[in-house]
């Protein structure tokens, strides 16, 4: 069953001249319009995610991965010119056009985003538990005991020591902060979560632990996920299917192991062969 679907996603930064998408992309070899200088962050990106499925999005820096992630999570920055459609099972119409209240509710209850930069996702001066509880309060939880119980449950699931619950988040290690972010994203039992570069800034040993934790929770709760990463090994470990992006466009889509072992496009072959 299709849960989340995107059709023709586009984000352009600058003052688009109308010909920007024709003059950019993989064929043009750039994502900056030669006529007006606008930057096409992503163009004509379509994808769908079924319930419980993990979709990977890979590509180098600037390929448009994070722009797609922001649109899917209904958290577009507001500076860009956005086009296209995002639809979620159970909701009518294009969610990119939905009013603020609807988008806010969906972000709270149904689509969780784990930001690339921890500071965008957590208030580090709050306690770790407070960061997670905030999400529950936004979703209408009112009983203090229930909230605390749920936060403890999420700490256990994401392997953050429960005894650190009331410590300020800036006293946590990077790996713990990332797991608190995942706990926060999972707090309201969303249908889908979007992870933007989940291993950024983490040591290799901590990366493995974060990925393992995420994969376990993802399978146990059967939550769908979109995992955005420049790191092929992250996507290889987590994703069922993978999309390869370059210069704002999707250039190849397929089963993750097929993309890794039998890449068809020249760029995908280069990308796979560049892994050290």
């Amino acid at each position, binding site marked *: 069953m299709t849960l989340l679907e995107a059709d023709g996603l586009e984000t352009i930064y600058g003052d688009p001249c109308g010909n920007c998408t024709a003059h950019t992309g993989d064929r043009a070899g750039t994502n900056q319009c030669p006529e007006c200088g606008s930057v096409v962050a992503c163009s004509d990106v379509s994808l769908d995610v079924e319930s419980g499925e993990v979709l990977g999005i890979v590509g180098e820096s600037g390929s448009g991965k994070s722009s797609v992630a922001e649109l899917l999570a209904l958290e577009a920055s507001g500076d860009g010119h956005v086009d296209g459609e995002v639809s979620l099972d159970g909701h009518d119409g294009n969610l990119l056009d939905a009013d603020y209240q609807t988008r806010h509710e969906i972000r709270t209850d149904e689509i969780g985003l784990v930001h690339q930069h921890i500071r965008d996702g957590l208030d580090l001066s709050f306690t770790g538990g407070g960061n997670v509880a905030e999400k529950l309060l936004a979703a209408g939880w009112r009983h203090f005991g229930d909230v605390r119980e749920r936060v403890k449950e999420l700490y256990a699931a994401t392997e953050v020591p429960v005894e650190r619950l009331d410590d300020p988040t800036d006293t946590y290690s990077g790996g713990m902060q990332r797991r608190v972010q995942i706990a926060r994203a999972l707090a309201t039992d969303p249908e889908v979560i979007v992870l933007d570069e989940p291993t950024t800034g983490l040591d290799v040993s901590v990366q493995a632990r974060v990925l393992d934790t995420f994969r376990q929770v993802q399978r146990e709760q059967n939550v769908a996920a979109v995992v955005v990463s420049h790191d092929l090994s992250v996507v290889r470990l987590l994703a069922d299917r993978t999309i390869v992006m370059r210069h704002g466009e999707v250039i190849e889509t397929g089963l993750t*192991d097929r993309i890794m072992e039998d890449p068809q496009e020249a760029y995908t072959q280069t990308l796979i062969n560049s892994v050290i």
Partner: protein
Amino acid sequence: MTLLTVDSLDKTFDVHAMGDQRVVGLDGVSFTVAEGDFLAVVGESGSGKSSLLKCLYRTYEPDAGSITYHPTGDDLATCGDRTVMALRADEIGYASQFLDEIPRVPAVDVVARPLQEQGLAAEDAREQARELLGALDLPAQLWDAYPATFSGGERQRVNLAQAIAPKPRLLLLDEPTSALDPETRAAAIDLLATYLDEDTTVVGVFHNRDVVEQVADSVLELADAERVRHVSVAEYVGEVVA
């Protein structure tokens, strides 16, 4: 009953970095596999054995031909990615030569995971995983350790145990005993014979002639990406003697 019909399967690789050079992996390969059969795929290195297995699992996308999986009627060469995902979850297992697992998961949990995904309770799945690892002579003190630190032979045993654990209807094995010493290999062959029953059909790539003789019902021989012959194991072995 036929389980798998492979018809005129072609696979070529376009290597863009080498001036769009084409490398032929499989050229018009056809054969059938009966239900419950154990088919050994043999041939020199580079003859296309692993390519064939990867096409059956759709890790490689075939260029032409068909692979009919009779229990569901799907053509594995052309069916959609979601169909492949569903078949991998319920019907078709694959073991590569090398263990490819997420770090920091103990060996016993690597093996137990597919069983849990089939619906077995966590502790029952672990119990069965321990039995399999024990049958493959993996020392008990390694069961709760992380395979990343294991030797090649130890990792291969974890890999094999994980692949056979859920008893898939079609099991694809890519040289599952290549890194094992003779004694451990004998244990592995024993386990294949005792743990798997007629409900599992196996297509396996093997280098070792003795292994083929012990496990296979029939033999598919490849050379230079083409089928040489598909014969019964008796005929394959008989010719060697003669």
